[in-house]
């Protein structure tokens, strides 16, 4: 079993996630963004979508399916970019 399939890897990923969330809160405060309760699921869903897209591209490359990696990357990037703008506008709502 490689390191990246081990429980320790996912534990470290969890630590990264916790640190990212704390840092995001501070960043949002500095930007004057009021992180109301309803905004958190919006951000989480967007981050999950981005994560799944990156995971899909990487898995496809690992499988040797370059067409899947390319098209998955393009679709993922476009949807993440467009939805990212929407999420940013929602975050700016007081």
């Amino acid at each position, binding site marked *: *079993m490689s390191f990246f399939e081990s429980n320790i890897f996912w534990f470290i990923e969890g630590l990264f996630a916790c640190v990212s969330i704390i840092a995001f809160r501070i960043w949002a405060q500095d930007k004057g963004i009021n992180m109301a309760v309803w905004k958190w699921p919006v951000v989480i869903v967007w981050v999950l979508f981005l994560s799944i897209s990156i995971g899909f591209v990487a898995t*496809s490359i690992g*499988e*040797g399916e370059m*067409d899947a990696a390319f*098209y998955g990357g393009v679709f993922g990037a476009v949807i993440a970019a467009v939805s990212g703008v929407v999420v940013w506008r929602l975050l700016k709502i007081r």
Partner: protein
Amino acid sequence: MSNEEESSKNELKIPRRTLIKAAGATSAVLGLSGLGVSGYQAGKAPSSYTGCESFQGSAQSFDRKRFAVDKPHYEKVGPTSRPDGRTEVLFSRLGVAMSAARSDKKIEDLDEPYRSYYLSRPEDFELDKKNRELMHKVAEDSTENKNRYLLAEAWADAMGAVSPKSIGNKPPEVSDFPKDRFGNPLKMKSPEATARLIKKVSYEFGTVLVGITKLNPDWVYKYPSGRRGFDRNKPIEVPKHWQYAIVVGAPMSWDPMYANPNFGTSNDAYSKSRIVAFRLASFIKRLGYAARPHTPGNSYDVMVPPIMVDAGLGEQGRHSVVITPELGCNFRPAVITTNLPMKTDKPISFGVQDFCKNCKICAEQCPSGAITTGGKENIRGYKRYLLHSSKCFNFWNSKHGSMGCRICIAACPYTRKSNWVHKTALKITANDPTTISHKVLTSMQKRFYPGQNPSDYYAATLGGKNASYREPPWWLKTEDFIEL
């Protein structure tokens, strides 16, 4: 607000520090519990059986209970009949057609039952005769083209080098039963316990999937395809001891399989299936019961796909291959018929019939046009998709590499390696009664995992480009290892 109300409101508020402490304590408990569960799983994980990971049955991971149904998906639509193994099995009739091609015989000159068969299917006669000509054409291809497949052919031959000996030519009433000293059947505790035992030893013997069913006599050939103790001119009376059927088998190696039709082979999986089947038959005989292996290449007295469906291993797809949830159609089965009483498995339904109605990728990729793009037909009383075996076999002789094509298997959206992407897709299609996801995922499959132009799969001397569905794995690239 009065002072009393304000004071009461303040008393009901939980201080933030208390909340954080409670959350921390809960997290600690959950985290430690998780460590415990993870540790327990690590202790019993199949991956800890170093060297024997694949013999623990962990590959058969799909939750079949959730998708179990009372009746298999195939519909009985008329009076049923059993297939004639002498004519309806292509390999059994092929020698007659190719001999007719050499001696320029017409259908009317053939002996029965081949004469009647080909009179009702004259197109098959022309297609079957054509195989000689196709083989010669492929042999005329350039040395450079042929040399590309030297390693793949060596690997295919090597995989076929180990094979159990034949069951011989005694009648099943003799050959299926144990030798005298093991003759008395042991009294088994219960069918449930026996089924668990048989499945466990099947995994230990090397099977990847295993299923158990009662044998439907409609799946037994009416006339035998090979001798195996039967008279080829007499119909098979289904032996009374052929009560249960156990399906075992193995997948083909994934990377060469994706490089079909030229670099892949069926021999790797066939060899493993044969070994598992003979081991299991031997084990059952030692318990004192009858057991008969029906194995690939062509040592069958039964049709295996519907037995697989009955045993809950999967559903039959448009290409006539049974699609399993774990391996897609990358599974080459063997069957053991026996009278050992066992608890049987139920058939499953996980969305394949609906998926195949819309998908048709196998039919679109098939270079020979053997797979229908239309609906199901009445075949011997059962409604299913028709595969034109003569057209299929023509293509086998129109390309290089090991015998067989297997493009439909490689191109099938269900035949994907087991990672989170494809497991998620399977979960979605299996749980979507609206079939909306089937159409979306089929479109994605065509765009993201495209095949080749079907005519390119042919050998260059037949107008193709010797194309493969995917590039071969590094260890089958002859040009990287051998001076050509």
